[in-house]
């Protein structure tokens, strides 16, 4: 039967068209035209997504097959989209948040030259396209296509200002680190193929096939997939690219490195939750990695002075939370947090963007302060964002984080306590950021102070919308015990996500936990307020310095991996290639030449010697013939 959802191909197609139009016409089209195309296409696909979401809620899920992408022998990889609860949610997030950020960018990037403006939007559209492929793909290969596509786009956008060598290096770093993850992902795919001969979700996750798999295989596959996820979602050990990725324009950081792309890892694992649930080992690894990342990133964030860096590390840390959720089997919670995080993190980034915009590109919070008066809207929205991420009820962040903490608690209290501690750190550094930036007195230069101004409507409206969302966004996943028939999200996702054994905790415990976390968070905020109300900078020392330098992880990688490889390559290039392999090859020639030179001397020119040699060889041959060959 011809399903209406067959037309979902429009959703990715429109941004693709936008990309082509803006990319090819970037010289001809005016900025307004470009932004119209850029935002329009996304809006259109957002609308379709909403419709799709409705359809799905109406219980109509569908796998739309378009054509054979790769079909070799008995391996068949169709180019197909899968529309179900999970993907539809992500569709909404991507297109929705994406749209807002497009609009925001339209004015944020005004200063750019027209063709670069066009380039920017084409990249942005291309990113949305790839991201949509990623979540809509009906098999791992299509997901992989999107997966690498978003990597490429982040590479392009980080290096958007390609004159700055630093930025390009950051871009390369991002791409390469993603590639490492991608390799693991690929191998996982091959593993699936070799075991099941298919990569389509429906077939892979069919009970029959799952039964076929041995535990070892499952563990291997899930681990490899997870490694892939660490690359994309910036987890230990592959997280260092994300902070550097802040080199890109701020809206990009908001869209790619906060709201959408980095959550691809979450999506992948949520997508293959059935596999994961069958491998407790992996689950633990995922949980612990997530937690460790969350903690590490949080500690680093404490001492960062670049407004975007702080947000970046907080992103890493939040992603850690999500993995913790996944690892403890609370897939729905993870997805829930993805959503809320998308709202408030996008909000925060855009807010910081507005701040940077106002200060004419200044990103160092030590040179800010007291912005609350000049940038009202930004100020308020930013505050909302901070509260949301800190997790004060009833803001969205609270519910999602609470769900995660709860599932951690059910797994074991230790996890819970560390997670809670991390949450408190989160609250602390976020409000540190907030107070340093908005309270106290301005520490920048005077002419910066002069043209401090609130950003134009095109930037503030998205802020407001996102703020609203971060406030109310939590209610879709509000726990049962607050409101009967809550956790809409959970039950909506239940068809695709195995609802793990419900919390074994009583309502009372749950209340206590919530109360505890909330109280501590409030305390933290007050503490932050007391310290950074009117901040003046001083030199970091001791442990603080270590944190400021991000635990020297980058330097470590440099020493342990990059330098040795370079040394090896240099050795191979300068020494081995020339003086071993090529030397051997030329050696043959030299030997021939040399023996030629020696053999010539036999030709002495003396008749006597000639005859002598002839006679000797005659004697030898006679001897050989008559006496040696018997």
């Amino acid at each position: 039967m011809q399903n209406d959802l067959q037309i979902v191909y429009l959703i990715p197609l429109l941004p693709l068209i936008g990309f082509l139009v803006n990319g090819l016409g970037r010289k001809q089209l005016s900025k307004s035209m470009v932004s119209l195309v850029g935002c329009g296409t996304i809006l259109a696909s957002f609308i379709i997504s909403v419709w799709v979401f409705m359809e799905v809620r109406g219980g109509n899920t569908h796998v739309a097959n378009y054509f054979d992408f790769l079909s070799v022998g008995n391996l068949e990889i169709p180019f197909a989209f899968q529309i179900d609860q999970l993907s539809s949610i992500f569709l909404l997030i991507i297109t929705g948040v994406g749209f807002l950020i497009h609009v925001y960018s339209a004015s944020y990037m005004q200063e750019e030259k027209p063709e670069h403006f066009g380039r920017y939007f084409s990249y942005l559209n291309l990113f949305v396209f790839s991201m949509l492929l990623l979540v809509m793909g009906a098999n791992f290969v299509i997901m992989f296509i999107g997966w690498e596509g978003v990597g490429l786009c982040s590479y392009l956008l980080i290096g958007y200002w390609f004159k700055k060598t630093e930025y390009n290096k950051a871009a390369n770093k991002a791409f390469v680190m993603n590639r490492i993850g991608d390799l693991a992902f690929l191998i996982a795919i091959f593993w699936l193929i070799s075991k099941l001969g298919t990569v389509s979700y429906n077939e892979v996750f069919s009970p029959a096939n799952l039964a076929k798999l041995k535990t070892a295989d499952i563990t291997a596959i899930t681990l490899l997939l997870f490694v892939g996820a660490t690359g994309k979602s910036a987890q230990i050990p592959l997280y260092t690219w994300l902070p550097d990725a802040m080199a890109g324009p701020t809206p990009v950081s908001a869209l790619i490195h906060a709201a959408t792309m980095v959550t691809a890892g979450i999506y992948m694992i949520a997508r293959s939750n059935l596999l994961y649930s069958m491998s407790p080992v992996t689950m633990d690894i995922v949980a612990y990695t997530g937690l460790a990342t969350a903690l590490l990133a949080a500690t680093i964030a404490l001492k960062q002075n670049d407004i975007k860096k702080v947000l970046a590390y907080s992103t890493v840390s939040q992603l850690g939370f999500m993995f913790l959720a996944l690892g403890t089997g609370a897939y729905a919670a993870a997805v829930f947090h993805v959503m809320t995080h998308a709202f408030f993190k996008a909000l925060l980034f855009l807010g910081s963007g507005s701040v940077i915009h106002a200060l004419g590109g200044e990103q160092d919070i030590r040179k800010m302060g007291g912005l609350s008066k000049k940038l009202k809207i930004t100020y308020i929205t930013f505050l909302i964002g901070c509260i949301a991420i800190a997790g004060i009820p009833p803001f969205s962040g609270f519910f999602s984080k609470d769900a995660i903490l709860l599932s951690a608690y059910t797994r074991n209290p230790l996890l819970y306590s560390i997670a809670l501690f991390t949450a408190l750190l989160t609250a602390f550094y976020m409000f540190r950021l907030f107070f340093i930036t908005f309270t106290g007195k301005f520490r920048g230069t005077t002419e910066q102070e002069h043209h401090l101004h609130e950003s134009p409507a095109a930037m503030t409206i998205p802020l407001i919308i996102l703020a609203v969302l971060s406030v109310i966004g939590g209610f879709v996943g509000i726990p049962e015990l607050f409101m009967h028939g809550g956790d809409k999200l959970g039950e909506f996702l239940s068809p695709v996500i195995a609802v793990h054994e419900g919390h074994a905790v009583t309502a009372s415990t749950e209340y206590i936990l919530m109360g505890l976390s909330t109280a501590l968070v409030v305390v933290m905020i007050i503490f932050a307020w007391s310290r950074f109300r009117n901040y003046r900078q001083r030199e970091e020392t001791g442990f603080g310095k270590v944190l400021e330098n991000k635990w020297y992880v980058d330097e470590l990688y440099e020493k342990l991996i990059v330098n040795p490889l370079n040394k090896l390559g240099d050795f191979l290039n300068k020494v081995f290639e020339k003086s071993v392999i090529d030397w051997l090859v030329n050696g043959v020639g030299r030997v021939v030449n040399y023996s030629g030179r020696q053999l010539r001397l036999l030709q002495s020119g003396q008749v006597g010697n000639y005859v002598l040699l002839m006679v000797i060889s005659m004697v030898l041959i006679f001897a050989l013939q008559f006496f040696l060959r018997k």
Partner: protein
Amino acid sequence: MIPVLLILVPLLTGLATFFIKKESLVRYWALLSSLITLTVSVLGLTLLKEENYLQYKAEWMQTLGSSFSVKLDGMGQLLCLLNAVAYPLILLATWKSSYKRSNNFFALMLLAQAGMMGVFLAMDALLFYFFWELALVPMYFLCSQWGGEKRIAVTFKFFIYTFLGSLLMLIGILYIQSHTVNHSFDIASFYQVNISAKQQQFVFWLFFAAFAIKMPIFPFHTWQPDTYEQAPTATTMVLSGVMVKMGVFGLLRWLLPVVPIASYQWGDVVTSMAIIGMIYASLIAIQQDDLKRLVAYSSIAHIGLMCAAVFAENQSGMQGVMIQMFNHGINIIGLWIVVELIERQFGTRKISELGGLAQKAPAMAILFVIVALANIALPLTNAFPGEFLMFNGIFNSAGTKYAVLFTALAGISIILAAVYTLNMIRKVFYGETNPLTERVLDLRLNEKLALGIIVVIIFWIGIYPQLMLNITDGASASILKKADILPLIRKH
């Protein structure tokens, strides 16, 4: 009919070119000829698909047991197409570069094309050998006549090296022929030859020597970077775009099916050689400061992957290799076009001396980046399906115990590939301009056209690879059937 035309058109036009004295005319003539060839090969793919169009057999050297028999099978189709597509592109891209005594230059180019066509078409071992050498000799003259300052020595090394390899192959051919039932060089009787596993061992190496040197596989590769560096770029394009594929092609058509047992037994050794080569070449490529050498080493790495995938001996790897031969050809030609452009404009290939081209020459930058990304097999570009299938093949190869290890190690090279490619892009196109690169001119029409076509092909195949896969389906299946050793083992 078609195959004969594919050989004759470039051959005759090439010979004729020697006698065209008018500089300007020669280019058009060569372009015309290559376009005709292209049309013919496309016809063979589309309209005239029937068997009787695609094969031709004539009496020739019966006393030797040889015959002039040529045939277009799936793999041949693809490579002939590559060969036919490559030439117009190359001519177009190098339209503006001038050669002294250009009639000889283009004549030799066309002769080389004829030779390579023959290699891809020959269904008779002796004929195959003939064309194998015929493709080589014009190359020798091209490189050492129009090459760089070290050309003579370098090209000579290249020639002797490959010549030696092909002579060893000749012995192999003779050996097999003397063991065929009807003492014939026909490929059919080669496929039916029945020699013991022990005999296959050294025959394998006799053949493999030629192919390994041609591809080239580590550690037989040292001729390649120097030659690519010294040769005139048009020739380098032919060499790296089409000619090295002869080696891989040889493995597929003349090695696996003929000595299946040995291929099976040596599979691990060869694969490890190939994979070591991949990592080795990639590491060296990272260190290169010379654009041409960088591309050369990257090509070694890619070819290594193909070789490894061939010895995976399964459908996925096989077809991956086949389409990858085509795609790699297209991509690397694209890379050379830009490299040549840069060299011609600035008189240097030193990456360290360049920079910031993207500001002044956006078209060049964009097209080059696309080609480069295709070269590192980004999804939705043509190289992705090929590499995906090849890796999948290696991973799933039944012949070896180390499949996972091989795949992982080979995978490292795709990471390294990303490293050197992106670094090159960064250093050459991004960053600030310097006095040298201030005065860069963007692509001219002919180069735009060439690169444009390449990019179109890249995305076309990248988005709908099944097109190619359908062509190669039958060929790979039949090769695998021949190479399948289980029945043989039962027999012995």
